[in-house]
């Protein structure tokens, strides 16, 4: 569109207000073209006097706007949705009308439900003919609704505008009219070229139908063209769909020529056709197609309308599902960040040792001795068994034993007494007993002390037992 033109419309082209002409002329000399707010009786509003709010006459203040809905706490969201859905499906109300009815009955659900049938809104008064006329008028005239109205005198302009906006963005893909027009054209060509191309309308849809056999095992399949149908006609050559059967009858037992079940190598030959393939998972009910093609206009239209309704309700569901997903995602994000602080990196444990980790492990030993639990917590990226193997492997290389000895010397006078054997006991305890599974490093140090005490005790027990 001519964007610049439109901008001009609002920016530059505005004619100078005539009443202001002389004044702005003077101003022009001083202020480059700037428009000014005009002052005078002709321009300002008359300010009303301040009144005291009439307390007792409040209700009299206005009956101006009509209240059509007011929120209520008595009906749950879920119930309200159900009610709207019901009124929509059974009586063709839109949700606004349904809520209006409910409000009319003072939020009494029972009354509203029973009254729904009495005020069912009139169905869309746009017949397919109207739609076709509108479309052709629009194509030849453009968006001049005054002139379109001349072609459709029974429609008010408001109705034309309303329909235009509903139709505008849908026409490219899903317009009922387009499809109807196409079908009509097909029917006509069928009539013209009867005999040999008899099956052209169904043949046209064949590429679509070929998808079915894989998924529709429970449905009835024509043995000739492999199409899903709801009713099969049994013939001497097996079950057939309506089209094949009529061909069969007319040609005295001839099998209708078809492309048959899926022939993938066939596809690249007619690229233009492939464009019309429905998306995966979509199938065409052959009976419906046939009734659209052959029966009176109204019939086919009904089927298409029903399909449109179905598509809309599915789209509704998709969007509400998306909303739910988005909601859950958002919640998840918040929740996760809540937990992230308290529980940092349990998942990132790897068996590979980086230099930094090695340094940390050695420093950990200096601080915690052989308390591998404590060290693994401090490291965050290694578990106890990793540290144990680390100890075994690098014992010599990093002189871990001297570190440990230093640690022992510093920390525990009791452990000083203990020999290698005792250490072994501690390690065993460490891996098996639950008492030692303390979580914080600070308690672990005392924990080991405790264990060594226990082990000492048990040793003395043993010795005393032996003595006895």
């Amino acid at each position, binding site marked *: 569109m001519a964007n610049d033109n439109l901008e001009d419309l609002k920016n530059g082209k505005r004619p100078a207000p005539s009443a202001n002409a002389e004044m702005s002329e003077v101003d022009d000399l001083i202020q480059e073209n700037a*428009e000014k707010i005009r002052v005078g009786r002709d321009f300002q509003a008359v300010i009303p006097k301040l009144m005291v709010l009439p307390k007792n006459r409040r209700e009299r203040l206005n009956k101006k706007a009509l209240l059509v809905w007011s929120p209520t706490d008595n009906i749950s969201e879920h119930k309200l949705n159900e009610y709207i859905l019901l009124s929509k499906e059974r009586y063709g109300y839109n949700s606004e009308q349904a*809520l209006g009815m409910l409000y009319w009955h003072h939020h009494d659900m029972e009354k509203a439900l029973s009254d729904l049938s009495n005020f069912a809104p009139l169905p869309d008064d746009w017949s397919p003919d109207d739609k076709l006329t509108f479309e052709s008028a629009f194509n030849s005239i453009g968006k001049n609704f005054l002139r379109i109205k001349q072609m459709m005198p029974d429609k008010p302009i408001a109705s034309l505008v309303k329909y235009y906006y509903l139709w505008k963005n849908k026409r490219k893909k899903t317009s009922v009219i387009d499809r109807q027009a196409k079908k009509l054209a097909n029917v006509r060509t069928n009539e013209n070229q009867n005999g040999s191309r008899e099956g052209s309308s169904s043949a046209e849809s064949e590429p679509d139908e070929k998808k079915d056999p894989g998924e529709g095992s429970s449905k009835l399949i024509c043995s000739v063209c492999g199409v899903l149908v709801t009713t099969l006609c049994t013939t001497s050559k097996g079950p057939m769909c309506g089209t094949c059967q009529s061909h069969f009858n007319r040609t005295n037992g001839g099998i209708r020529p078809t492309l048959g079940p899926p022939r993938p190598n066939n596809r690249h030959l007619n690229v233009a056709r492939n464009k019309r393939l429905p998306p995966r998972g979509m199938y065409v009910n052959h009976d419906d197609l046939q009734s659209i093609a052959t029966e009176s206009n109204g019939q086919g239209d009904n089927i298409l309308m029903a399909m449109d309704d179905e598509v809309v309700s599915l789209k509704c569901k998709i969007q509400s599902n998306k909303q739910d997903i988005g909601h859950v995602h958002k919640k998840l994000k918040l929740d996760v960040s809540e937990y992230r602080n308290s529980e940092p990196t349990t998942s990132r444990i790897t068996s590979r040792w980086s230099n930094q980790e090695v340094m940390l492990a050695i420093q950990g030993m200096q601080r915690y001795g052989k308390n591998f639990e404590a060290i693994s917590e401090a490291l965050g990226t290694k578990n106890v068994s990793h540290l144990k193997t680390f100890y075994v492997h690098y014992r010599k290389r990093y002189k871990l034993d001297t570190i440990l000895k230093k640690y022992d010397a510093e920390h525990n006078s009791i452990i000083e007494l203990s020999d290698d054997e005792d250490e072994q006991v501690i390690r065993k305890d460490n891996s098996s007993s639950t008492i030692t599974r303390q979580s914080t490093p600070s308690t672990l140090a005392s924990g080991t002390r405790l264990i060594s005490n226990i082990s000492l005790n048990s040793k003395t027990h043993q010795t005393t037992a032996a003595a006895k």
Partner: protein
Amino acid sequence: MSITPFKKRVCYYYDSDIGNYYYGQGHPMKPHRIRMTHNLLLNYGLYRKMEIYRPHKATAEEMTKFHSDEYIRFLRSIRPDNMNDYNKQMQRFNVGEDCPVFDGLYEFCQLSAGGSVAAAVKLNKQSADICINWGGGLHHAKKSEASGFCYVNDIVLGILELLKYHQRVLYIDIDVHHGDGVEEAFYTTDRVMTVSFHKYGEYFPGTGDLRDIGAGKGKYYAVNIPLRDGMDDDSYESIFVPIITKVMETFQPSAVVLQCGADSLTGDRLGCFNLTVKGHGKCVEFVKRYGLPFLMVGGGGYTIRNVSRCWTYETAVALGAEIANELPYNDYFEYFGPDFKLHISPSNMTNTNATEYLEKIKNRLFENLRMLPHAPGVQVQAIPEDGVRNESEDEDNVNPDDRNPQSITDKRIAPDNEFSDSEDEGMAPGVGGGGRKDNRSYKTVTPARKQARLDSNRMEVDEPEFNILKDEKEDKSVSSDDSNKKDTVKS
């Protein structure tokens, strides 16, 4: 006291016919956007959370509360088929080009004005906290002249209604165009302060200079914030929040009208700002926090899918409801492709508003606001009425009894005011020169601007990221401001 209670009684005014009016082929103003908004509200389930009103058609009598009898008579009688008989009057009332004669023109004006007037009455009755009329907001219309797609100024009519029971009414305008119609209507009164944030410089309607501050009694009661192309969310907030805070502090209105023109959004067909729906909605959120009787009206907005997104979001903000970023399926679903999301992302256009420039405007406006007496023109008999009102209102409202001493002290320092008036006039030319300089620099940027606009059209719309931290920060600043305000009043 911190933030006012979240849930508000919201009333919404809509007539199902309003979307059916059509300005004409190629005309950017499309009343259909109001229906699209309505449809989104319905499918988001926001509709059922509000009181829904079908406005009456405003009578000629109601409209002549502001407009001249002659002008309204003309609007009532003109039709597309008798246009040729009215050539002279059309020229006089500026009807024809921007403001075409279309089928149902008068009814359209009636519905738009009826909604705003009914909303104002509703607020006067105190039976609602927030009223919304997306069909209104036609802020360019003058007393006897149509302008900028506007014929009848529903905002002025609404404010006049509010003034019956409110001593002071604040009008805020976040349309990309200057709210000249409203400013002109209340240019000489101290009971209405008009604050307009708009693009200024070679732009419709041409008014809205920083130096336009009102006249007569209304001097300092018109506040204009002239801005350049490419305003983004952050810049906008950085000027909107301090100015409105200061205005609230000094003017102390008892009701607020916010014109939510959506042509300040990014990618607008006529606009040249770069705001997102979130940034635009933040203004609503901020004003809402003051807990004053609040009238929200529509206005400009010419990329209709974004307009309906914006107004839907702002309705949700008014309700304090959270809505999903995924749009629900609706009658006009295809309009919102390819992403079908509520929020839009800004374009990469350059923001030609330097921080220093905004700072300069802000300081200059603060100077003007300092000239205001704190509680202008309080009439003694008005106070009991206001007092009754305030008891049932939120705590944000300042008790007029407390304010009284302040107004007395203000009267005492009135001579100082006059002195500073003249001082200000002496200063004006110097500042004016600065303004012109800015104008010139704007012109040099013009070629870049169009490019930016094209880019913005090409931009894909993505879900903008939440900035929770920043929101919190803003919360705090507001609450602390409020409490400060209260403290000062109390002391």
